[in-house]
Each structure stands twice: as C-alpha cells, then as structure tokens.
C-alpha cells in the first residue's frame, strides 16, 4: 500500500498543475486590472467626482465631476434592461413551453447566439440608421432602445438555458392538477427559475452598462444630466474613453476614477441581485 509513482499519478499531477496555472492567470489578470484601476483612480476619486457635473474646463483638469455619466449610464442600462426583460422573458418561456427542442426552437436559438456575437458598434450603427430614418436625434431613448437590443439575445439565451434545466416532474405535477401551459409557465417555471432569471438579468445589465460603442451615436454625450427621454445622455464607458483621450494626466486619472465607479456600480448590483436570488430561491426545488 505504500505510495509509488505510477503513470496515472503523473497524469494527475500534470492536470493539477495545468488547472492551477489557468487559475493563476485568470486571478492574476483580474487582480492586475483591479490594481490598475484602484491605484490610478482612487487618488482622483473625490466627492466632487460623483456629485457634480463637469464644469467649464473639466476636461482640462479643472473642477467638476461625472455625475452626468453616472446618471446617464444608470438610466440607459436600467431602462435597456427593463425593456429587454419585457421581451426576453416571454420569449424564453415561449421557447421552452411551446417550441422546445423542435426545429423552430433550434433556429431561434441559433439566431440569438449569432446576435449575441455581433459587435456592439454594429448595434450602434443599426440604431443610428433607424434613428436617422425616423428623424430622431441622439437621445436617452435611443440609448435605451439600442442597449435593450444589445442585451436581448444574452438575456434570452441565459434564461433559456436556465429554464431548460427545469425539472420535468414539476411541470407534470402542475399539469396533473389541471393547469394550462401558461399557468405552468407563469406560476411554476418562473417561480422555480427565479434565481437563474435574476442572474440572466444581471448578466445583461452588465453588458449594457459596460458598452461604449452602441451608445456613442445613439445617445450622444453631454455634460448635463438628461431631463427627458429625448435629451442626449452621457455614459460612463464614454466618459472613460473621452478622458483617457486627453493629453492631461489629471484628466486621465479621472478616467480611471470613472472606471472605478463603473466597477463599483456593477459590484453593488451583483451583490444586491445575489441577495435577491437567495431570497426568492428559498422555495425552489433543488
């Protein structure tokens, strides 16, 4: 029974080293990104940054903040996520309840996957073309609509994957009581899948709030806080982009501070939704 090196032990050792190596690379990159953002951004992260809009000369290093971009991003990603949810939840339920693994289901899933892979600048350009045709100017509404289009495939597919893991027994149990398919979908499937649905929403929100290219033409950029759906809106990723593009080190530092704010927003929303998941997931059947 004494340990002796055999081929299979060597195999296991190599596999473990490889896994460890991948882990170090991933964790290391993440740590490096966070370190860069923190070390460069933290010094510039003042109360003014989060409580004020840019004053004259802000982009030259004078006073002001990026409240315009914080509010703009929250409005756009929040609105876009809400609109996307209105369409993707019914779509995901339809896919599962009525299409299932049929040929149509296959094509719908494939299209969503392709849409997921399209670069966000294309969504931006598409949105912009339509807005031109409608005679719309760059606005909060335009940003919300384009972000909802961008988020729709990822949200639907994430929900679809969650709903597909729905235990068949549960559906049958509800059907056996004389439920219609709609009642099964709304009262049982959504309930069971709530934690997964919350993470799908979060995933989509993350993509929406972090995207710069799609809102560049559609929402524009402004130093003011948007007051209506028709006024242009700033966003955090574009704030980072514009500030990094200036030749002034103080302003570049503020770009990192903006990135830090964006990271914190995503973190807070992740933690919040995890908490919600745990609350609503308490009744789910394991």
């Amino acid at each position, binding site marked *: 029974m004494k340990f002796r090196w055999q081929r299979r032990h060597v195999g296991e050792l190599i596999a473990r080293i490889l896994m460890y190596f991948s882990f170090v690379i991933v964790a290391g990159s993440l740590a490096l990104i966070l370190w860069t953002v923190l070390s460069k951004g933290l010094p510039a992260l003042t109360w003014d940054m989060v409580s004020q809009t840019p004053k004259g000369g802000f982009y030259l290093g004078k006073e002001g903040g990026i409240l315009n971009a914080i509010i703009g991003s929250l409005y756009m990603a929040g609105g876009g996520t809400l609109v996307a949810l209105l369409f993707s939840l019914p779509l995901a339920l339809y896919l599962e309840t009525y299409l299932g693994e049929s040929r149509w289901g296959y094509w719908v899933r494939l299209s969503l996957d392709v849409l997921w892979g399209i670069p966000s600048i294309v969504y931006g350009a598409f949105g912009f073309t339509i807005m031109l045709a409608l005679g719309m100017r760059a606005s909060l509404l335009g940003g919300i609509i384009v972000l909802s289009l961008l988020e729709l495939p990822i949200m639907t597919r994430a929900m679809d994957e969650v709903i597909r893991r729905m235990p068949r027994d*549960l559906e*049958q*149990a*509800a059907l*056996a*009581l*004389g439920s219609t398919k709609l009642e099964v979908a709304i009262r*049982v499937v959504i309930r069971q899948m709530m934690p997964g649905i919350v993470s799908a929403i979060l995933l989509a929100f993350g993509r929406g709030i972090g995207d710069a290219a799609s809102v560049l033409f559609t929402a524009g950029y402004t130093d003011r806080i948007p007051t209506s759906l028709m006024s242009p809106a700033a966003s955090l990723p574009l704030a980072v982009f514009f500030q990094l593009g200036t030749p002034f080190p103080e302003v570049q530092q503020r770009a990192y501070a903006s990135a830090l704010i964006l990271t914190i927003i995503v973190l807070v929303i992740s933690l919040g939704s995890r908490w919600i998941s745990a609350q609503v997931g308490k009744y789910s059947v394991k």
Partner: protein
Amino acid sequence: MDAHIQVKHLDAFYDHQQALKDINIEIPKKQITVIMGPSGCGKTTLLKTLNRFLELTEGTRISGEVLVDGQDIYERDIDVTEVRKRVGLLAQRPSPLPMSIYENVAYGMNIHRMKKGKHEYKAAVQHYLELAGLWDEVHKRLHDPATGLSLGQQQRLCLARGLAVEPEIILGDEPTSALDPISSQNIEKRLLDLKEQYTTVIVTHTLRQAKRLADYVIFMYLGEVVESGPAQEVFENPKEARTRAYLEGQF
C-alpha cells in the same frame, strides 16, 4: 358493476412500438382498483391514458375510447385541464411545487378559482392537509418551503394538493415506491381511508401491496390485459394460467 371509467378498444404506441393492445376494462366507482403486472407490461402507460398524460410524451399515439362517467375524454371538444382536474394523479416520486406548503395545497384551488377570500382558502388548506394526515406535522410551518419536508411528508402533501381540486378519481403511479416502509404504510392507510369518497386506481409492481389495497384487480402482461375482476376472485381463483404464474412469482 357501477363503472366509473370504461376503456374500450384502446391501443397506444410509442413511435412504432405498440405499448397497449386492445384494452377493454371497466373500473368500479369508489373502490380501489390495482393494476399489476411485471415491469414493462404497460401498467403506467395505461394509467397515463386515464388523465391524458400520455400525450405529454412526444411520439405517442393512441386510439380507442376512455369514458369517464360515459363521456369520452379523448373527444375533440374536451377541455384537457378539466379532465385532469377530475382525475388526480399521485406520481411515483413526490414533486412539491416551488412554493410554501400552504401555497402547494392552495395552488390548484387557485387556478380553478374554487374558493373566495383568504378565509375559505385557509379552511380548505387545513381540511385537505388533515385528509392527507399531514396537518399536525406542518400546521406550525405552513409558510416554509415544501422542499424542507421529508419524502414521505412530501408525498402526503402531493396527495393533499391533488385532493384540493376535488377530483372524482385518484390515480397512483407506484405512489410508494420512492418511500421508506413507514411512509409507504402511511400513504396506503390514507388511500384506504379515502376509498369510499374517491374512485382510486393504483399501479404497483409489488404483489403484497396489491393484496393489501385492492378491491378490484387488473392484471397486465406484455401490453395486454390478461385478467380483471374483483380482488378476491383474481387472487384466490385466477382464471388465466398467466395470472396464476404471476401470483406464484414466476415472472
């Protein structure tokens, strides 16, 4: 015999394989009918035709008639949700819905809009939990997740949930096979207590359970009904050689 369910010339297919061959049976009202036979003989398939559950499996086809109170449940203008409300099912494994204990029992009454106001619901939930013999164990934690119950309790919860939509018929698909002996005994006791109010059809592969429960017996083999009749007759004096062989433990 006062038949509650009549099955006439029923054939069922999975893709091209025939699972049921020309089934003709009558199931008596307010008694326990046990469908028995070796595994793969079509017991569960036959049971699933009685609440139109077979059609949930893709590639199944069925022909013939299933009459409940003289009405063919496969006729075109039949509301399948009504059929399943009248014909309840106790599944092999208990599957509580992702809700609290209370909501599980209230669910069916809720979708069929059978009660009005919180008061009526509360009273009904208590009534059916008592009928299933679960009230004393759960009345202090009605709003806890149903998944926190033991398997045996979950199965009794499923029974209460099924009874709450006021079915006339209860189907049981080996309802005790996933349970420990004491929980099984408990479920059997409930079914015996309830048999005067409901027509009950149980599928089982254990002969001993069949003998404990049955008033009326249907013996199936290879997709056919070999013999059916009052329990005493079939158990003590089977007409068919195959039935005798099964009762002697030859399959």
